[in-house]
């Protein structure tokens, strides 16, 4: 099966964990990263448009193209980070994948099941395997339910456990996420933001999902709490071999947490690459601007970066009335000619395999012809 050399660090860690727990079928649990066909989730050409209605007759006068032709795949055990500014459509991607909003076009295949055409029975099964963690730990927990009910609800709905078994499983989950079993009868308002996010994590894990979609799981938390939650998610991934779709706007958090990163701008992926490659060699001018915009803490007392950054002018255009050509061209320092007229497609460019960019101005991939 997997050769010794090809086993990535995460898988190695996982294997160590598994051995510690005495699980014998290690090989089966280690995701085979070499084979490109075994994507757990594959999204192809996904489009989600929201109609804009106006007037007495509520006629549709146009569409907001929240997600406009997005494709990516996540292998089992991997984490894909979806980065972008507010309103770029990253949350809509997540919602379309679990069919919380209807997709307009495209396909979503999860573990060989077509999600978008699944009937009610199949969808129920899918939702057992895909769970969500939301940004706001205050809005996403029902204030009138106890912690035990919040975490146990999905187990009850899916008829996975009841009675004393249910309580047992909920307490086990609570201790998994670092909360005390006594918390089971408390209400969400009795907890701090970080603890509430732990409750959300426990709820998401209750049904032993394969894929967890995290929508800005740490952006509402304080710095000292943020790192606790990120570590918790990483530990749980190692322990259960979880696959994450991680949505965030913070590039530093994404670099820490993800294996593959996709940068979104106005409903489209403008750049996608393995984390190391993207951060070492960002090609799209938007990705570069995003990276240079992050205020950085530099630990050595060198002169401050004040004035050294390249600030991006302008703002994200209205999604109702997107610019012609490349959606980024009004803010792009390199835009000219073709950028204003034609939309660039996501193509493999750069020096490394798997580095995709949608930009007319980026260098073409160097093709070394041996023949």
């Amino acid at each position, binding site marked *: 099966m997997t050769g010794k050399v090809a086993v990535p660090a995460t898988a190695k*860690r996982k294997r160590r964990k598994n051995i510690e727990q005495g699980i014998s079928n290690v090989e089966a649990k280690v995701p085979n990263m070499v084979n490109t066909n075994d994507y757990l989730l594959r999204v192809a050409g996904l489009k989600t448009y929201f109609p804009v209605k106006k007037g007495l007759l509520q006629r549709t006068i146009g569409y907001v193209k929240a997600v406009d032709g997005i494709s990516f795949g996540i292998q089992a055990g991997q984490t894909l980070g979806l980065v972008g500014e507010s309103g770029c459509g990253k949350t809509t991607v997540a919602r379309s994948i679990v069919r919380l909003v209807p997709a307009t076009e495209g396909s979503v295949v999860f573990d060989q099941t077509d999600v978008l055409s699944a009937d009610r029975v199949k969808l129920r099964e899918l939702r057992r395997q895909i769970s969500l963690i939301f940004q706001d730990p205050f809005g996403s927990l029902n204030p009138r339910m106890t912690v035990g009910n919040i975490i146990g609800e999905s187990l009850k709905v899916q008829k996975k456990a009841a009675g004393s078994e249910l309580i047992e499983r909920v307490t086990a989950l609570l201790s998994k996420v670092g909360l005390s079993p006594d918390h089971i009868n408390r209400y969400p308002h009795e907890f701090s933001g970080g603890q509430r996010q732990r409750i959300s994590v426990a709820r998401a894990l209750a049904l032993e999902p394969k894929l967890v979609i995290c929508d800005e799981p740490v952006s509402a938390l*304080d710095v000292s709490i943020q790192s606790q939650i990120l570590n918790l998610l990483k530990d749980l991934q190692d322990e259960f071999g979880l696959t994450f779709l991680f949505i965030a706007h913070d590039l530093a958090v994404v670099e*820490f947490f993800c294996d593959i990163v996709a940068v979104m701008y106005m409903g489209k992926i403008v750049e996608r690459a393995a984390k190391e490659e993207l951060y070492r060699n960002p090609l799209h001018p938007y990705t570069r*601007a995003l990276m240079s915009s*992050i205020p950085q803490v530099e630990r050595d007392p060198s002169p401050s970066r004040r004035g050294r950054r390249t600030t991006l002018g302008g703002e994200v255009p209205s999604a109702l009335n997107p610019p012609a050509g490349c959606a980024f061209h009004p803010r792009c320092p390199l835009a000219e000619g073709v950028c204003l007229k034609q939309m660039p497609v996501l193509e493999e460019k750069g020096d490394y395999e798997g580095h995709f960019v949608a930009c007319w101005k980026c260098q073409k991939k160097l093709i070394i012809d041996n023949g």
Partner: protein
Amino acid sequence: MNDNGTLLSVEDISTHFFTEEGVVKAVQDVSFAIMKGQTFALVGESGCGKSVTALSIMRLVPEPQGKIVSGEIVFEGKKLLSLSEKGMRQIRGNEIAMIFQEPMTSLNPVYTVGNQIVEAIKLHQKKSTSQAWSDAVEMLRRVGISDPQQRVREYPHQMSGGMRQRIMIAMAVSCEPVLLIADEPTTALDVTIQAQILDLLDRLQEQNGMSILLITHDLGVVAERADDVAVMYASRIVEVAESRQLFAEPLHPYTQGLLESLPRLGITAGRLQTISGTVPEPLHFPAGCKFHPRCPVGREDRRCQTVEPKLREVRPGRCVACWYARDRRQRAEDRRQSPESAAVDEG
């Protein structure tokens, strides 16, 4: 950097809120000074009292529940706490202006942005209405709003978050304040817009030489924009330093923990450092040093658990409130005197 003297000095301010459950000591014995033309950052996590400190300076603490119980604030030689409400109104918005985190809720939705800027100008300056309107247009141009003639007649809802924050800044600087208090000015904005707004504040500061009190939770923003920093934890300032010094050599264990727990570009190793536990509730602050339950040293130490350390100067311009904090020079001295005890400190 600027030796023109102190503009504002806050001396041992304590602000308490008297609630039904008890007295919430939101700000305790906070002292700092802002020099002319300087950017001074107040950094800390939510609920640490940084916003209440700003409100105390503006004397906008909601009464009667909230009250500044002790201390003094001296602004350009005037004692702000003993001014009459009328005297304070002369200063507020005129000499000290403030911008808030949420640009949507701090603008009035039923007036055009022009109306709101004109209101501020006419309140503080003897100008005709038409003069004030042309000033407002000029202000919008200065904060980088395109087509200001048109925009001045628009309502806040017609603008994006970044533009609203520019309007707030235009309003705040319209009376040429000498001190601008910016309370989390970019927290609600995207990173690319955040960079624009921070650049704008830099530029305005260069033009009118105003001082900025920057309140934020983002250490990155502090590292790039502030001259001096005060770190707050549980209503108290735990460390004051020149910004570059703070990041190069944090002395307080809380500051150290914060810096280590920060995911930074280029840091991709397995796990992040964390500060264990959570920020204490203001009604149930622990005895002694408020950080001791989360501190690797304080958890074990009698003195940390019982006696609260005061902010003390370890070297000119560097203050820290910790029994065990030592800077490099002092640690070296400790080591020379008694090798064993120094080793304990290092751990």
